[in-house]
């Protein structure tokens, strides 16, 4: 990627200090690097004590690691944010309408806007959901939208996380850490609050309770357990919401309800915020080997006895092959032009696209349709000859398994390094709460940063870190 085409969120393209960073710059110039380095270590100690860790798969059992935290905030102006949220809201409304349609009348297929086989032959399509309308009509209660920025007002959606998006605890803990370490910065800058997220989340979930729930619906968070990589977050959210954190072994179906085993007997749950994948949710209906779920929960769900958030089967909306149709989906359901751009995507299942991708492999990013976490992808411009050859043969063998996108000139944000501030590439994941009374987006989200110079991979599993994300009051 050309250096001079990169948009830096502090210095723009031409080296002029952008307004959101003005106060920060003044502050930073008055600080001594040695003191800031001490602060950086202090931040890591705080994270270690709080236990904000993730478990790395494929490594020694129970190894817990910290995600590196960078003390330089990423700063977004209020009006930039406002424009962005309008696009996100539109997209999320469309996604919910799409999910309802795809599990009911399938108008979008009849209209020929998406090929029928994209759905019928898609593993993410869940036949159990056909004809099921979730309580409140909402499929995706929580969505994490991955965005990248390429210019002043140019944001692209990289992917929609409509199943069980993670990372929101980092948004909250990063802010908490910054408030503790640099209180003066929050006096100088008017940063919009994100702290009400857990309260909003609980309210959103409770608002979607099934009819059988009482005035105060019982909400619980379902976790795969302490060895899951995101366990910290599951416990954190349950704690912050003041609800029980349950595991599959705590639950069973009692009298047509999903109930948790308490010290006083089984008590029904109205809304289950599950952080367990569809496949493991119900050994009776899905993977029979699963010990993480509840036998029969799908039957209770279909009978209206519990709300599952997000609804099963939402994966069809964030599938990478469906992603390429998102502009059509937005237009079809909202009747509006999409406000947020999709990254142009070549579906390698189509012969013309495949031919193009094979010819231009060294300029493209190739992703697995069902992959995640930055695994199994090829970044053409930085790949070795060997990697390119490997992907060529992979593409030819199973073209339908891949999509390809141009490498975007991801924006950079100043990051604290040994040599002072240095630009590093970032993405942004805002968290979207969907309730019957509307959509809420806490101002900010999770900024992931590729700490290695020049790297475009921000995933925590591959050496990425995080930053506090500020949206300023205008």
């Amino acid at each position, binding site marked *: 990627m050309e250096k001079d085409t990169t948009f830096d969120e502090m210095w723009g393209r031409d080296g002029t200090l952008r307004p959101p960073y003005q106060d920060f710059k003044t502050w930073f110039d008055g600080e001594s690097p040695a003191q800031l380095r001490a602060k950086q270590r202090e931040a890591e100690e705080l994270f270690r004590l*709080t236990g904000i860790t993730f478990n790395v798969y494929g490594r020694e059992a129970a190894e817990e690691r910290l995600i590196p935290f960078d003390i330089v905030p990423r700063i977004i102006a209020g009006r930039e944010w406002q424009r962005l949220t309008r696009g996100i809201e539109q997209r999320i409304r469309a996604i919910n309408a799409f999910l309802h349609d795809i599990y009911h009348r399938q108008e979008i297929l009849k209209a020929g806007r998406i090929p029928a086989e994209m759905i019928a032959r898609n593993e993410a399509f869940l036949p159990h959901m056909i004809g099921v309308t979730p309580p409140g009509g909402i499929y995706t209660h929580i969505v994490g939208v991955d965005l990248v920025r390429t210019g002043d007002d140019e944001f692209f959606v990289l992917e929609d996380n409509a199943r069980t998006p993670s990372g929101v605890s980092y948004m909250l803990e990063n802010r908490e850490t910054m408030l503790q370490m640099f209180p003066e910065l929050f006096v100088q800058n008017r940063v919009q609050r994100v702290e009400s997220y857990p309260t909003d989340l609980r309210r959103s979930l409770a608002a979607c309770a099934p009819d059988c729930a009482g005035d105060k619906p019982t909400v619980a968070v379902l976790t795969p357990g302490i060895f899951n990589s995101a366990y910290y977050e599951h416990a954190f959210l349950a704690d912050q919401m003041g609800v029980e*954190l349950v595991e599959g072994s*705590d639950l069973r179906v009692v009298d047509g309800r999903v109930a948790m*085993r*308490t010290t006083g007997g089984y008590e029904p749950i109205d809304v289950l915020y599950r952080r367990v994948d569809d496949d493991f949710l119900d050994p009776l209906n899905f993977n029979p080997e699963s010990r993480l779920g509840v036998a029969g929960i799908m039957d209770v769900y279909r009978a209206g006895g519990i709300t599952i958030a997000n609804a099963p089967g939402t994966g069809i909306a964030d599938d990478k092959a469906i992603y390429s149709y998102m502009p059509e989906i937005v237009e079809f359901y909202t009747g509006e032009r999409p406000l947020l751009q999709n990254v142009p995507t070549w579906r390698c299942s189509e012969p013309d696209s495949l031919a193009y991708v094979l010819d231009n492999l060294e300029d493209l990013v190739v992703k697995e349709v069902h992959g995640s976490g930055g695994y199994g992808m090829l970044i053409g411009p930085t790949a070795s000859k060997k990697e390119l050859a490997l992907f060529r043969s992979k593409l030819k063998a199973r073209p339908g398994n891949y999509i390809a996108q141009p490498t975007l000139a991801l924006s950079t944000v100043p990051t604290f390094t040994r040599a002072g501030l240095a630009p590093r590439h970032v993405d942004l994941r805002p968290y979207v709460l969907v309730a019957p009374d509307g959509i809420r987006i806490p101002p900010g989200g999770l900024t992931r940063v590729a700490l290695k110079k020049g790297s475009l991979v921000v995933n925590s599993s591959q050496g990425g870190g995080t930053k506090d994300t500020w949206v300023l009051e205008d």
Partner: protein
Amino acid sequence: MLGRTANGLYWMYRYLERAENISRLIETGQRIALTRLQASDGEWTPMLQTAGSYAGYCAHHDSVTRTEAIDWLLRSADNPSSVLSSIAAARQNARMVRTALTHEVWEAVNSAYLTAKEMLARRPAERDLPGVMNEIRRRAALVRGTTDGTLLRNEIYDFARIGTFLERADNTARILDVKYYVLLPSVRSVGSSIDNVQWETILRSVSARGGFRMEYGNQYDPRDIAHFLILDKRMPRSLAFCLAKIRTNLGYLSSTHGARSESWHLADATDRRFMTHDIDAIFDFGLHEFVEEVIGQIAGLGRQIEIDYRFYE
């Protein structure tokens, strides 16, 4: 509260208590070893027995030596009750019940674990041992302090207390089980220095030398020591004290749940049957037999609590 959460709290505090008790054993053993005229490793076998891990030790070692016994008790990963294993297990349980704990308690137990893991990554040098033990005691005290100061007084606290006192009662009973013979009249030769060392070992291993002196003066009498450890309700590690606390907290749980549980009845019966005698009656009955019976009662009580409060499916 979830049955699994009750289970996690109960074990978190049992393991914390265990870590402290084992540390105390190590300190006692070390103290005795260093102040004796001739070096002997004989004291470590009863220490391992008291810790309930003599068999485990023997499976991994050919002979009992001071350094190996200390390492086994302090930091061996093969010993599930070593200080380090216990702290790790307490922290693992704390992670599981994170939502029932306050931020302060969690941080205290997490930092206890992080510190212990770092300090015990290798065998501490002889001269560092007192410092290490000191630090572990301070970390444990911090967990206890934050528990007292911040934890909600509801079921959460009840299970924390029950776990603590069940483990403590079990520990005191084990010390008596292993050392009962030095308290028996037949072995009692008046004030011999051997006896004094043995009696002091017992008192040290329950942190009770000062308390004992305050109550009985500085003349050790085995019958007084037995009374102090078994029946004295002012002594926070005596069997009577621990059983009374367990009964009280089971009582609170019973009123929360609106009915007296099986385990409350069991605790009540144990208290009445074993803790209402005087010490002479216990010696007449047989000190060892008495202690063995109490150990059985405590184990049974633990099992009944698991059932009553649905710890497992």
